[in-house]
């Protein structure tokens, strides 16, 4: 009993400060989003202020915020689908390619993920212009898989490797094709990995900035990451309450989704390590 309490107490000592530290930015965002703009700069009004919904009103009625959200969501969903379609067979193939070739190709694919967008946006600008996709959401849909697919392949590769070969062999002996074994046996077992890929890909896309600012310029096609700094920052004048409200809103559903799939998400990341 005493040992249990000690163990639990020790956990709380670690977890509570860590949780406060991580949750504080969200708390601060929420507080600031309800402050009148004039009181943001007033050091005497850090906690005692008149809460207002005006900043949310501004966001919804005087900016294209809802459109930015819709654009981000649309690009996110399509890129997730493309990523899954490409990464699942690629990850599976690389997982089953034994020997040096498979390993080398796996590492090579992952290395492409490490090339920063701040370098890639220049040559890609030419590609996008040649394809006539300037200022189109399709430009982002075309470019984003360049960093989501390598990451997803690398993640799924590790996961597929952890699925026992015997399961597939049994399915093949029972008359399943290779594709059938993948769909019926491997994918259901690998669901945590797939969920991880979906969540992580969607997050990467929602947070991406460099390509979005480079390839999209009209206000109708902006994503959240471009719309917020463009419309809520006027040079050296930051609309802090508006910015905080704009960031807080999409982070709430994302946090809920993360939480809903937390166990599978962790399994997805650690599956390859412990199986």
């Amino acid at each position, binding site marked *: 009993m005493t040992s249990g309490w000690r163990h639990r107490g020790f956990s709380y000592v670690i977890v509570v400060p860590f949780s406060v530290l991580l949750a504080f930015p969200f708390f601060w965002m929420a507080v600031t989003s309800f402050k009148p*703009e*004039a009181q943001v*700069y*007033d*050091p005497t009004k850090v906690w005692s202020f008149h809460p207002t919904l005006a900043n949310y009103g501004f966001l919804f009625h005087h900016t294209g915020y809802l*459109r930015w959200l*819709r*654009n981000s*969501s*649309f690009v*996110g*969903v*399509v890129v997730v689908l493309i990523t899954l379609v490409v990464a699942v067979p690629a990850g599976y193939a690389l997982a089953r390619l034994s020997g040096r070739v498979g390993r080398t190709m796996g590492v090579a694919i992952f290395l492409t993920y490490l090339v920063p967008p701040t370098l890639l*946006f*220049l*040559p890609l*600008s*030419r590609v*996008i*212009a040649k394809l006539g996709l*300037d*200022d*189109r*959401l*399709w430009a982002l849909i075309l470019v984003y898989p360049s960093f989501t697919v390598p990451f997803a392949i690398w993640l799924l590769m590790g996961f597929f490797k952890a699925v026992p070969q015997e399961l597939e062999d049994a399915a093949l002996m029972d008359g399943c094709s290779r594709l059938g074994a993948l769909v019926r046996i491997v994918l259901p077992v690998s669901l945590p990995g797939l*969920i991880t890929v979906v969540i992580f890909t969607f997050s990467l896309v929602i947070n991406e900035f*460099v390509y979005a*600012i*480079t*390839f999209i*310029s*009209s*206000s*109708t*096609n902006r994503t959240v990451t*471009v719309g917020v*700094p*463009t*419309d809520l*920052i*006027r*040079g*050296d*004048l*930051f609309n802090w309450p508006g910015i905080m409200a704009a960031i807080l809103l999409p982070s709430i559903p994302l946090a809920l*989704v993360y939480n*809903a*799939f937390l166990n*599978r998400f962790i399994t997805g990341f650690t599956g390859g390590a412990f199986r």
Partner: protein
Amino acid sequence: MPDTAGQPPEAQGRITRRELLKKAGAGAIGLGVAGSAAPFSFAGPLRYQGRWLKGDLSIIQWVHFVPAYDDWFDNTWVKQWGQANDVQVKVEHINNTLLDTRAAAEVAAQSGHDLFFNLHPMASYEDQVINHASIIHEVERKVGKYGALAKSSTFNPKTNKYFAVSDNYVPDPVIWRHDLWNGIGESPATWDHVAKAAPKLKASGHPIGIGQSQELDSNMALIAFLMCFGGFIQDEENRPTLYTKSTVDAVKFMANLFKTGEDSGIFGWNPASNNNYLYSGTGSMILNAISATRTPEAQHLPFSDNLWIWPIPAGPHGRIGLEHVMGCYSIWKFAQNKENAERFLADMCIHGKDATIASQLYNFPSFPGAFPFQDIRKAAAADTHKPSGKYSILTTIAEKYTHNIGYPGTTNAAIDEIFSKYLIPQMFAQVSQGKLSAQDSVRDTMSVAKGIYAKWRKRGKI
């Protein structure tokens, strides 16, 4: 109460994670389909219905510091001009810090907007843009000479080419808290006064705020400060001249000012820091354009009446300031609608008065004849914010103390690169942070600058 303990979560009215995933997936797909069905997701704004237009014009520019300016530009000026000239004009605004990235992308793609606006002359893109001389000459015929500041900023005497047209510039005053300075019996008339007052102001919780970071405001403030001490990046012939005793003295002075009268926040300065410092009631003096005073006025901050505007403090070499930003339009060689762009730009400069008024005296016309100083002074005097007539000094600052980046030479590709790489703030910061001696920091910076000048000289641009 029914016992639900053994039932699956669905039967208990709870949602399982599997269900949530299904619903979230369906919702996301629905959202995506809805997004794809909306025509505006993939197309630009609708053209005027039932009209045949002579042409199109696409413009990209910053989100102006004064929102009223963008309202006027987008909803009045552009609409009227478009209708008068039968041209479909599309204007896109992006944050000022992203303009350079966007320009690089457009040049790389050899495709982009017809008119590209930036806050500094893009001298390093000279080969990518048309010669804008004909536009300038046309405006000169209507409103008089192109201002000396604008010409020094956008004309390359070596190639005899105007690589941009400046429609406006923004004076860069010192903004200081009169109540705080008055409390210690000082005012920022000279840099010596600033150095004397700084420790007292810092001790009272109100440090000076001059950035030493890799961003626009630090760049402008420190280059201007350097010139007040007789340190110049280049001479009249555009030859690098940074490594002098005057520069070393200026760097030492600023390092000392940091130690006695500033805090380490200046090393992480960003474009918002000046204003935040002032608005929080902490800062006692900054160098910034009048956006820093307009916001406190609009928000009725308690000290807004105590914000005074003065020219840059005088140094041993005099009072030499810079523009805060130099609004410049460029037309790419690969622009699709060059004629419309030229026409628009000329008309924009001819109507410089409307732009200055719409910007609440933030923009000053680069063609002074479009809105003469005496008229601007009258408009400034009519401003009712306290202290009375505080904006009138802007005309004096613009006329007497505002110079181009690279003064006493012209703004050129080497200056553009030194500016874009933030070499000057870095030179100051290394000394203030104790990483290098003033002598070493200036010598190292000069060495880098020499390389940059050699590169551009080799390319025939200097």
